[in-house]
Every structure is written in structure tokens, then in C-alpha cells.
């Protein structure tokens, strides 16, 4: 008789652990209530969480809804702000005017006309992003993506969040325990013995003894305790492609409580890396990602401080955190009866905030494809590994794209453009794109993380020269005009009606958003 999957143990209580446990529990809530499925999360009281990132994609709105959160509570508790995209400074030529945006907007009508074709043919004076998305205007004017009268989780334009990772974890923990029926243990896992078939039989904890489960989720961070240490799934570095290996981070105060809050993640290129700058309600989170082979930590700190000083703020040495990492991933994300989510699966520099969305996608895939009987686990594992191999490779390529297109002249940037460092598939696509713009059919998956529009925002934000021989049909030209005219109209309407970002956040604190 088939043995049912009845118990899941998640090891690790960071963002990855709670999001994964929560999304599985939300999807299988009725089975949890019938006690046909138990989810246990074991969290070490002594290991601090890294806090994977403070920037999300718009997908987080759906994730929060699935988990059953109110947006009002989330915004209040996590000091969250609304993110409308990313802004890249000095990535192309290292000049002050070298600025472009990668907004979250996906303009309507994209399935019928490729606006990048129009852009490459007509070469208009406006930037590509400003031409097709109102969000550039909104970002530059410091406006929120919604009004106080918008219901929770909906807005005038697409948005994700910036959040305080520590506060978010705390909120998730409370909700998962109180509402979603997850069993929580504050305990250290000391071992995870393997059975004859090479699968994990149980975890041994310090205070709660042995805990058996049918499926184990490794969310133990960089350590990768289950998948890496116990199951010996090897780490595959990709630092030949993405060369940064260190980050210094700090929390920075606003000059005044009324200071405007940026509605985008700002990424400013540096000599051997780049600096992220994220505005929450109560502070900014800033970090310098760099390659230690090209830049000493001392110099990296100097550049970091200079950036913060130029932004009108200060940071003391003792408030600077130093993180080392290696870009790369486990050879398999799901092995036997163990699947790793988050840093235990792999790490990439936080360019384009891929960490959090990868956790959401992983957790959703596990919840959605959760095998019913233990015999099905290998099938689910194979399917999962195929899917996430694909996502991982595409993410590495998309991050690499930002470096490959740069014209910056320091050794770090020059080495980043070396053909040996560029994944073959990306090199092929770049060759194609010198003669035509990226199109949806370049990316074959149904749930592609980075769609053609994202590539277009980066390519044309960085002045990539596509010498297209394509022409637009009369109908397509008309459609392109329609989309762009609609956008200009939208910019006009939205800049009149949308409130300042900070004003909206304060109103949410004061009045809250209605659910409808």
C-alpha cells in the first residue's frame, strides 16, 4: 500500500523557512485542519538569520494574499514601502547622466506588437522605459503606485515592496503559527541521519528528540545543513560569471522624518561592484556588493561611505556589516526526500531582487506539486529540479546582462565582458539582438522569471545598438502609437492624482486600506 506524505519538517526560521512553510500550509490548509498533514518548522534559537533581501517583486502581493495577510498590517508591521522597479545609475558609462529604469510595468498590447521593434526602428529621443511606462515619471516624482482609496493589493500601476526582513520574518512566524497551523520548535538540529536508501530518516534535535518526516525542507541558509552537509549534494560556484563575493551593508537614517522615500531600488555601479539603496519607511538599507579580488575591503568601505555621505547621510564604522559569499548553487535543489529553498539552495548577488522571488517560486512549486505518496517524491524531485535549473540559469544570465553591456573601464568591468565569462546562451541571444530586438519567443517557458520586456528595459536602458532590419506593419505601427499615446495620457492622469509615496504610507498607518 502506498505510504502517504503526511509530515513535512522545515529546518530554518528565516524568510525562506517561514515563506515555504506558510505557502505549503496555505495550499493544504484543509488537510492540516483534518490532521492529515503536519508541518513543523524547527528554528535555531542561536543562529541569526541573514535576511535575504529587502526588495520584492510584484509577485509578493499574490504571495501575501495566499498566506492570508492584510496589506495594511504588512505595510505597518514591516516598515514596508512600495517598489515600482529598479533604477540603475552609472552602469553604462559612469557619468552622472547615466541613469535608466527597469520598471515593473508590463505595458498592455505587448502580445500584439513588440514595442522594442518600434524603438529600434524609430530611435525616438525619449528613453525606452519612459516611452512605454508611466512608472519612470512616477518614480522621478516620488509618487506612490496607488491611492488610499485603492483596495489592498491593487494599485494604479504594478508594484512590489521594500521591507524590513527581520520584521517580515517575525510577522510570518506569528501568522504561520497562529493562523496556518504550523508547529513551531525553537531548537537546534544536531544531525539528520540517512537511511539505507540515502534519504533522511529524521532530524535529531537538542531538546525535542528525534523528529520524523516524509519530506524535509532545508532553509538553513548558507550552511545548507541538510542538502549540502548531510546529503552531500555538491556546491557549484558560478563566480566565473558573476564575480562579486563580498558585501558591506548598513542601515542609514533619513535626514528628517519627512524626507521623501524612493519608490525604486537604486543600484549605483562602482569600481568593482555596485551599491544598492532601498528606502523603507523608517530608514534606508544600503549595501556595497563588490569583488574582493579587484577591490580591498578597506577601499570598498571608503567608497561605501563616500556614497552615503553624498546622499546626505552618515554611517559609523561599527554599524557596517561585512558579508562574504560565493555565487553559486547546489548541483540539485531537491535530492531524495529533501528540498532546499533560499540560501541553502544557492546565492546570487541581490541585483534585481531575485532572492525573494526565487523563494516564492520554489515554495509555490513545492506546495503545488506536493507529492501525495512517498513513492512519488522522486518524480516530483525530477520535475522540480528541471524547472529550477532552468530558472537558475536564466537568472544568472539576466544578472550577467547588466555587466556585459557596460562600457565602464576598470579591470572588474573589463573582465566581466570577457567572452569566457559569458554563458553561451546569453552570448547567442546578444548576437541575435544586435540585429533584432528581444521577443517573447526567445523565452520559452510559461512562467518565465525574466520576460523579453525585462531584457528590453536593460538593453535599451544601456543603449544597446540593435541595428534591426525588421519593419512594422501598418497595423503594428498603429498599435505601437496607441500604446504610447495611452501611456502619455496615463502619465498625465496619474501624476495629477497619485499621492507622494511617504504621504500614502503615513495614511495607511493612520487609516488603513480597505480590502475592497
Amino acid at each position, binding site marked *: 500500500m502506498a505510504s502517504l506524505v503526511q509530515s513535512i519538517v522545515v529546518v530554518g526560521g528565516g524568510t525562506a523557512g517561514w515563506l515555504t512553510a506558510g505557502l505549503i500550509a496555505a495550499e493544504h490548509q484543509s488537510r492540516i485542519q483534518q490532521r492529515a498533514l503536519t508541518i513543523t518548522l524547527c528554528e535555531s534559537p542561536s543562529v541569526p538569520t541573514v535576511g535575504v533581501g529587502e526588495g520584492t517583486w510584484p509577485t509578493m502581493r499574490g504571495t501575501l494574499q495566499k498566506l492570508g495577510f492584510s496589506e495594511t498590517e504588512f505595510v505597518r508591521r514591516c516598515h514596508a514601502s512600495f517598489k515600482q522597479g529598479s533604477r540603475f545609475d552609472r552602469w553604462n558609462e559612469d557619468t552622472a547622466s547615466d541613469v535608466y529604469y527597469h520598471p515593473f510595468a508590463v505595458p498592455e498590447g505587448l502580445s500584439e506588437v513588440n514595442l522594442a521593434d518600434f524603438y529600434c526602428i524609430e530611435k525616438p529621443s525619449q528613453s525606452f522605459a519612459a516611452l512605454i511606462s508611466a512608472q519612470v515619471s512616477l518614480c522621478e516624482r516620488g509618487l506612490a503606485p496607488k491611492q*488610499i*482609496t*485603492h*483596495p489592498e493589493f491593487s494599485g494604479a500601476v504594478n508594484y512590489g515592496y521594500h521591507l524590513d526582513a527581520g520584521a517580515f520574518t517575525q510577522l510570518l512566524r506569528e501568522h504561520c503559527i497562529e493562523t496556518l497551523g504550523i508547529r513551531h520548535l525553537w531548537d537546534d538540529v544536531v544531525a539528520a541521519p540517512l537511511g539505507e536508501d540515502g534519504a533522511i530518516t529524521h532530524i535529531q534535535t537538542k531538546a525535542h528528540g528525534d523528529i520524523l518526516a516524509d519530506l524535509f525542507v532545508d532553509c538553513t541558509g548558507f550552511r545548507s545543513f541538510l542538502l549540502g552537509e548531510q546529503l552531500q549534494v555538491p556546491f557549484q560556484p558560478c563566480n566565473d560569471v558573476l564575480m562579486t563575493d563580498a558585501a558591506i551593508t548598513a542601515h542609514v537614517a533619513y535626514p528628517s522624518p519627512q524626507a521623501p522615500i524612493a519608490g525604486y531600488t537604486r543600484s549605483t555601479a562602482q569600481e568593482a561592484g555596485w551599491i544598492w539603496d532601498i528606502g523603507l519607511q523608517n530608514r534606508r538599507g544600503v549595501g556595497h556588493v563588490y569583488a574582493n579580488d579587484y577591490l580591498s575591503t578597506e577601499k570598498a568601505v571608503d567608497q561605501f561611505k563616500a556614497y552615503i555621505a553624498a546622499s546626505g547621510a552618515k554611517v559609523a564604522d561599527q554599524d557596517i556589516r561585512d558579508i562574504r559569499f560565493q555565487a553559486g548553487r547546489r548541483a540539485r535543489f531537491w535530492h531524495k526526500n529533501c528540498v532546499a529553498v533560499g540560501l541553502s539552495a544557492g546565492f546570487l548577488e541581490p541585483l534585481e531582487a531575485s532572492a525573494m522571488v526565487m523563494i516564492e517560486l520554489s515554495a509555490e512549486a513545492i506546495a503545488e506539486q506536493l507529492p501525495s505518496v512517498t513513492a512519488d517524491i522522486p518524480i516530483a524531485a525530477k520535475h522540480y529540479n528541471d524547472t529550477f535549473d532552468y530558472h537558475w540559469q536564466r537568472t544568472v544570465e539576466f544578472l550577467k546582462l547588466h555587466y556585459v553591456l557596460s562600457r565602464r573601464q576598470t579591470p572588474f568591468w573589463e573582465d566581466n565582458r570577457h567572452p569566457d565569462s559569458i554563458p553561451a546562451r546569453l552570448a547567442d541571444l546578444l548576437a541575435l539582438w544586435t540585429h533584432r530586438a528581444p521577443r517573447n519567443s526567445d523565452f520559452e517557458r510559461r512562467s518565465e522569471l525574466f520576460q523579453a520586456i525585462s531584457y528590453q528595459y536593460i538593453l535599451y536602458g544601456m543603449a544597446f545598438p540593435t541595428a534591426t532590419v525588421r519593419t512594422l506593419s501598418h497595423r503594428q505601427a498603429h498599435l505601437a502609437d496607441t500604446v504610447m499615446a495611452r501611456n502619455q495620457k496615463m502619465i498625465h492622469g496619474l501624476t495629477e492624482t497619485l499621492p507622494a509615496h511617504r504621504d500614502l504610507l503615513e*495614511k495607511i498607518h493612520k487609516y488603513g486600506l*480597505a480590502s*475592497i
Partner: protein
Amino acid sequence: MTSPQYVPLDEKKHRHLTLNTAPRLQALTQKDTAFIVLEEVVPLANEYPLFITKNPTTGQFQLVALLGLDKRQNLFIENGQWQAFFLPMECTTYPFRLYLPEADSSDRGLITLDPNHPSFSNEGGTALFTPSGEPSPMLTRIQQCFASLMQGTEATQRFLTEVQHHQLLEPVTIEYENPAGDKVSLTGFYQIDEAALAGLDPEPLKSLHDSGALRTCYALLNARTHIEKLAHWLTRTHRQ
């Protein structure tokens, strides 16, 4: 035109001031919506379409009576007459305004007025004060309305919180046919979700009944029919 200067109503300064109906109604011809409080729902539901909207500044739900079907349109005023038996209190108190010293203070609201408003003069119309300096019946009525509006705000919020708690609100689109025969849709309105109300379990239903909210819910739903009346008035006005 100078911007209005509101001053506190003063029995000495405004002893001889009178309020004139014609210019007062004239100034209301562009008022498309009136904010109402809970106690007005049942009486007004006989004559006005009533809906729930969101306050544009706070996003909080509020009760409104629709006076027109377009911006700055009040179909209730025709030939200098208000075409209804009851008036929303917000219209009754016009052009007086209530000034609240501090949101959190317990100070009583202060009735203010703009003496230069065309509705006010020193002859004709209805006097604000009696010769002996007592508030006239008309002014007393206005004072009562302000008091009811202030006191009613809390009950209104309680009602709106209660229906939200039971998930009884739904966004609705108001649709009507304009005089040209085109379908027009108005958005940004909310109404009691009739199906959700009908599907309530006995327990929440009883609590809504006990608090009086149930009666208000049905009054709001019944008032929807007045949209057709307004559309009819619009067509009639258009033909004239």
C-alpha cells in the same frame, strides 16, 4: 471673486442677518453628492439613491446620497424647488459650516458662516435671530442638524465597520442611460452585497438585526431604484 471668509456665528454681529432660499438653492445646484449619517439612511432611502464611497483623503468608507449623475450636477433642484420631502442634513446646514477646533479636543464645534455669501442679506428671507437675540426656529434647526451630524459620525463608522466585518460590502458600478441613449457607468461606489446578506448564517444575521444594521442594509439596497428616477429627471430636463 474673493475666497470665502468664514467667521464664527455671532449673535451680536449677525443679529440682523437673514437667509434667502433662492440664492441658497442656486449655490447648491452644483452639489452632486451629500454626505449623510446613519440616522438619515432610512428616511432618505425613500427619495434618494444612497451609496457608500471612499473618502478621497482617508480611504475610509462613508455614506452618501447621490444628488446627480454627473460631476457638479444636482437633479433635485428644479425651478428653484427641492424635489424631495426630506433634505440631507448636510444640505440643510448649507451655507453654514462647522469648524472643529481640534480633532482630538472635546471642544464643541463652532458654527461659522461667510457673511458675504449671496444667501445672506439684511432684508427678506428668514432671520437668523429673533428680535430679542434668540436663535430663530430656522437657526435652531440648523444647530440641531450640526449636532446630529457630529454625533452621527461615530454611529455611521460603527455601521460601516460592522458590515465590513461581515464582508457585506461590494464595489458596484452605477449604470444608467443618458438622454442621448448611451449607457453611462459610474465607478468608485460600494453597496451592500445582497447575495452575501441573504447567505448570512443565523448568528451574524441576528447580531446585525440586534444592532439595527440589518434595517439600514435593506434601506440602502432599496434606495438603488432612485437611480432610474434620476436618469428619468435627467432626460426630462434635457428635453426642456
